[in-house]
């Protein structure tokens, strides 16, 4: 399921949310920003690929999704493949 909507009246345009990518985990004041903006903010620091899908739980997030306070936004990190 892809999520590109906010929850109407419950939408919170500022506050803390959590951004994650692999071993990285950063609570940040990014509520109100889009997924694309969050990606731009963290991509250089963490090496997030431009095509890494963003998730909130199992839901895939659209690049224009506006991050809500308390969201856990996870940029997909490919699992270890070899062994």
């Amino acid at each position, binding site marked *: 399921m892809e999520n590109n909507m906010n929850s109407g009246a419950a939408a919170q345009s500022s506050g*803390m*949310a*959590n951004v*994650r990518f*692999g*071993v*990285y*985990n950063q*609570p940040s004041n990014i509520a109100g920003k889009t997924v694309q903006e969050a990606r731009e903010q963290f991509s250089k620091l963490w090496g997030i690929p431009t095509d890494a*899908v963003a*998730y*909130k*739980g*199992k839901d895939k997030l659209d690049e224009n999704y506006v991050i809500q306070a*308390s*969201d*856990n936004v*996870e940029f*997909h*990190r*490919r*699992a*270890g*493949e*070899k*062994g």
Partner: protein
Amino acid sequence: MTTETKRFVLVGAGGIGNWLASGLVRLLEWKYPGSGLIIVDGDNYEEKNRERQEFTKLGNKAVVKAHELIPQFPNTVIIPLAKWVVSDDFSGVQADEDAPKITASQLLNENDIVFAVVDNFAARKIIFDAASKINNIDVFTGGNDDELFGSIYHYQRRDGYDVTEHPVNFHPEYENPPDKNPGELSCQERSEIEGGTQLLATNMAVASFILGRVQKTIVLGQNPEESEIYFDLGLGKSEPYNRSVTHNNQYTTV
């Protein structure tokens, strides 16, 4: 010590699996005597594997590893299966390929604890999909890249329901694997697969993280909520992810 017995199914006895076998058999021998360890692998140990893998002679990985462990651990029933694991419909298997195979559904039973430490997403997906049709099962998987990054995942089902999510829900690489199951390839194609430049430390770390999860969720019976763990030995960091089906996925400050 308990009278309870377990059946561990280790799929893959290579870079991660050979170390994992050493830990799993010790757990079974002393914690669950009389249990079974099934080692499944269609591949062979070759000289080039010695840099990261421990074995006493060349030959099929499952057979060699089992024959090494059997005399050391008399209270565990160790059975090698020199076969590749394939999907139930044999999809993708080369028509002229006659290497021994077993389907994931034939291999897995109720209450199994499975360790899918093969080096490709395609074979792991076959195992996860077969497990998703079993009422009570645990599947641990793990892998690494060519450097110091690795990850593990624990998929658990109880009474016909997922306790943790199927990894396909978080990983497109399981939904559409970019690689091929070696069991589907011809002998020639398999021989051309390179192990890359993997590191012993990362292989062993994946095995250790899996053993840690087994200790917590199987031996101690605790909730498997931190069911996915990413780690980077270079950064000295690891990060658990809650993949429980009941997780509300909200970030809360304490």
